[in-house]
């Protein structure tokens, strides 16, 4: 372009001009290189974002942690904390509580529990359980278990299910699951017991561990049993046939287990079953799809998200089951119509003191989700943005 301004073309061989042109070219190159390499910003450790949401409330519960799963491969499992004493929601607290831990919390959070003074976050695709101080979320240690799913505690030990047992030598590549017994003092796995294929939730009651086997990798040949493990011998003693593709198992105070089946996404719908722990037999079945649940007293709060292949739509329900009467009390515990705002309900919790209900919306699983808080009558109190796929709650007591 510059040449346009020149009245006559520059003759070729003049030595001074040669030098100038070359020098300018070189200078430009050097300057642009230096400029471009010097100013790249560094990535900072995320400071938590805080939002004041509501007025402070003081009771025995300090607050709750919310584990966001993060989509697989994104390494975006994050931890949020809602503090009742300040009414402030703290988003993404793990990184700043542990600025020296490389690659933050990990990939795909799958379960969150508190035992004693410690917070345990099961990070599935990072093949580990992160052990933190429950008050500060400061890391204490890590338990490496491949493809670990859910965790429960009993008598100083943690018990965690995993999909990653030995592989059968035949071409089906079937891979048995196991329950790992972890000493919470040393954070070492001390024993393993093999159960069914792809075991998910587990529940500990009356000296036994009940494990929901899913067989989720075995499509179309799902598992359909609960494994019963004797705690004392730490060995599987029985299988209870329930339904295909079991997912969650929770014990009520009447000695019954509430077990969910995912169905097969085709013909067999998701259902809720109860199993009597005295007889080890299925007591009955309720006609409600369940993807997540929370037991508060005798009320079992359930959310159902079931995909209907014929209508190509996800059918959503928010139900309450009376575990004593074993009947559906409500199919929509949200009473003010605000359930329309929830696209993909995912996690649920109920504050045992106030009765407030928390439901998370995972939306499209790749963008931030939303936490909705309802009062005990099912009216929306507030909502707040969370991390990606908000899913697992645990209440922090004093």
């Amino acid at each position, binding site marked *: 372009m510059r040449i346009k301004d020149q009245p006559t073309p520059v003759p070729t061989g003049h030595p001074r001009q040669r030098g100038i042109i070359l020098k300018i070219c070189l200078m430009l190159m050097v300057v642009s290189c230096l400029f471009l390499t010097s100013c790249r910003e560094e990535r900072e450790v995320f400071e938590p974002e805080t939002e004041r949401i509501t007025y402070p409330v003081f009771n025995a519960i300090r607050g709750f942690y919310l584990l966001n799963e993060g989509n697989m491969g994104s390494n975006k499992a994050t931890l949020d904390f809602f503090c009742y004493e300040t009414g402030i929601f703290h988003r993404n607290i793990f990184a700043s509580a542990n600025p020296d831990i490389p690659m933050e919390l990990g990939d795909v959070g799958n379960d969150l529990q508190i035992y004693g003074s410690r917070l345990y976050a099961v990070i599935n695709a990072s093949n580990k359980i992160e052990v933190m101080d429950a008050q500060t979320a400061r890391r204490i240690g890590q338990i490496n278990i491949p493809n670990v799913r859910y965790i429960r505690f009993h008598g100083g030990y943690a018990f965690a299910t995993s999909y990653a047992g030995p592989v059968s030598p035949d071409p089906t590549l079937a891979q048995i699951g196991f329950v790992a017994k972890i000493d919470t003092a040393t954070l070492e796995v001390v024993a393993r017991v093999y159960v069914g294929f792809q075991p998910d939730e587990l529940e500990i009651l009356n000296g036994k561990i009940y494990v929901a086997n899913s067989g989720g990798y075995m499509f179309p040949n799902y598992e359909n049993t609960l494994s019963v493990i004797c705690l004392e011998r730490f060995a599987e003693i029985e299988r209870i046939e329930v339904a295909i593709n079991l997912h969650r198992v929770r014990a009520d105070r009447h000695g019954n287990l509430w077990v969910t089946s995912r169905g097969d996404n085709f013909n067999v719908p998701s259902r809720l079953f109860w199993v009597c722990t005295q007889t080890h037999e299925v007591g009955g079945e309720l006609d409600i799809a369940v993807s997540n649940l929370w037991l508060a007293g005798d009320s079992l709060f359930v959310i159902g*998200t079931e995909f209907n292949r014929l209508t190509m739509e996800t059918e959503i329900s928010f139900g309450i089951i009376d575990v004593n009467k074993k009947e559906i009390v409500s199919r929509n515990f949200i009473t003010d119509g605000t359930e329309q705002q929830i696209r993909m309900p995912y996690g649920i919790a109920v504050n045992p003191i106030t009765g407030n209900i928390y439901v998370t919306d995972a939306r499209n699983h790749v963008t931030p989700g939303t936490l909705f808080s309802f009062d005990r009558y099912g009216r929306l109190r507030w909502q707040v943005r969370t991390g990606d796929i908000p899913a697992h709650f645990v209440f922090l007591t004093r």
Partner: protein
Amino acid sequence: MKNKQNIFPFKQFALGFFLTKILCFQAFAGYSSDTIRTHEIEGVTIVAQQHREVIPAQRLSGEKLERLNSHSVADAIRFLSGVQIKDFGGIGGLKTVNVRSMGSQHVGVFYNGIRIGNAQNGVVDLGRFSLDNIEEISLYNGQRSRILQPAKDFGTAGTIYLRTRRPRFENNKPYNIRMLFRTGSFDLINPSFLWEHRIRGWDTEQGNNTHNIASSVSAEYVQSSGRYRFRYRRVLPDGTVAWDTTAIRQNGDIQALRLEGGLTGFTERTQWQVHNYLYSSERGIPGAIVNNVWKNSQRQWDRNFFTQASLTTVVNDRYELLINAKYAHDFLRYQNPDTTLMLIDNRFTQQEIYLSFANRFSILPNWDISLATDFQWNVLDANLQNFVRPTRYTTLVALATAVEFGNVRIQASLLGTFINEQADWRGLPNILPEQQTRSAENRQELSPAIFVSYQPFAGARHVSPIRPLQFRAFYKRSFRMPTFNDLYYTQIGNVSLRPEFTTQFNLGFQYAIDMGRTTMDAEYAPFGHSRIFQGLQISADVYYNEVTDKIVAIPRGSGQFRWMMMNIGRVEIRGLDTRVETNWLLPHDIRLQAAANYTFQRAQDFSDPTDTDPRAGTWGRQIAYIPWHSGSLSLLASFRSWTFNYSFVYVGERYHNSSNIRENHERPWYTSDISIGKTFQLRRTRSGRMQYAPMSVPTFRVSAEINNVFNQQYDIVLNYPMPGTNFRIILRLDI
């Protein structure tokens, strides 16, 4: 030297009016790429481009292509405007190209004029196409606005043509042999071999009245460990290091063999080509780096084979015919042996048969029409549970017309696509009776397009193709079919998917002048003769694109496979592509070519009207991985037998999803690559200048490249670290 340059155009004229028209245009269209001129090379090349394109392509070809420090086609395409490359890193990593943010599945990749298909997932991995025997890469927005072309060429939103080397035989040489060996970082061993043999004719001195036939064989082997050091770090707000970790990228190894062979021939009125291609590889899939997982172990095997043939003939002054045929067989095996994840060993086999018949009729000297009919058959088989073995029959009919009124050229086309699919659900468990007959519905879609260009200042000299200024505009609506994976992948596929549509509007100009090319051209050089300043090309286009019914994976229910493909997305893209290219002949015979691209894109996600949170909402926000600003710069210098290149690629800040929050923010990255090369003549010619007779004397070329000179640590795709500084040495022998 000056004489030599001038002789060849006359030779071209000697070939008759028909060829002259071709070659002059070729010289013009090729201007953007081969600025260190290769007239002699073009002179004996027979080109397929008989008719002017209304809007010329962005091209990379010849020496420039060789010198761009590129390992594959994907690397080279970074230097085109309006293009985003998704690169998962390393030599074996998947590299796909996205033109103007419409998605990589809207980009058609054509190899020697016939589209490379992938009915399974619609994506072509451009990292697999070596530049060894590729002579030219051209990118067209919309479509190649040429009148005689298969119906398929009218069908994609953006098009990339890869053209393999055409044989040329200097001084009646009976053969050309090129041996190449590359080695360097990542334990790369990459030998290749090219042998072109003149079977008959191909004698430029005596004109082209005979039937000229030549064969070509090309073979290449690549082996690399794919290992490189990468570094992730974070700082505290006060600037002190929070953590800083360095690791070696693992499981990025690759072994690949490519074999190609073909015959090509031409007479005065006919050209034909038969081409066979085989690519066989085994590679590791390095996977995402996440907390506690620094190594992955997934493997992939590919075997791609195709054979294709093409014939174009000028039957008479008014009628021209183009016939294409192809058979392709692609095998893919994906294995996950990692026991911490679901164990997988899947095999997929795709087959494709393609036939095309295109005709051009000249109604008046300045008015052509064309009718093209294509037929395609695709089938996919897999060892997945409950897989339904889909078969797709596609018929395409394209009607096009091209008119030239003085300075204005118009091409309008209408493509009809008729698709019929069958899927076999019978006998599968877990299928409701009403689902058993489900396959995607038959589809009929129309894709209209109109391309207009206006070249003022042509005046009475319209015989010359060199008109410096061109204004151009186009409109096009096109679609992509849902892929077989979208429709039928067990548990995820959705047979009720509709096609995904794109609508494009483009307005732009190009200004090109070329000094001192030939005496003829010089008449049109408004600045007169200039020795130093050799040429300039500037182009700029603004565009508005819309993608509707975008196919997006959305979660459903709570099953383990919780995704489902749905037509829910909508994206609006507003962009600007600019390009400047200049050529200089500096004192001391230093030739310099400088090119710069800049692209601005605002690609907004309008998929979810409820997601309007002022900070984290996706409504109206920039879509994943599309930077607002991106660009590249390349400086190619040569001095006698030495070459020196510097290239720079910049990709500005972007977000890895449409929620534009800090957690999803990706920093800008920019890399500088340099290379230096020297050519040795093994036997001197009289002129002593190798670059004007590249094939007549055995030459040996050594070049060394340093890529990512400043060792920038960056990810293009979240958690897929890219290599830092790496180097390559290339030895090339031409006999």
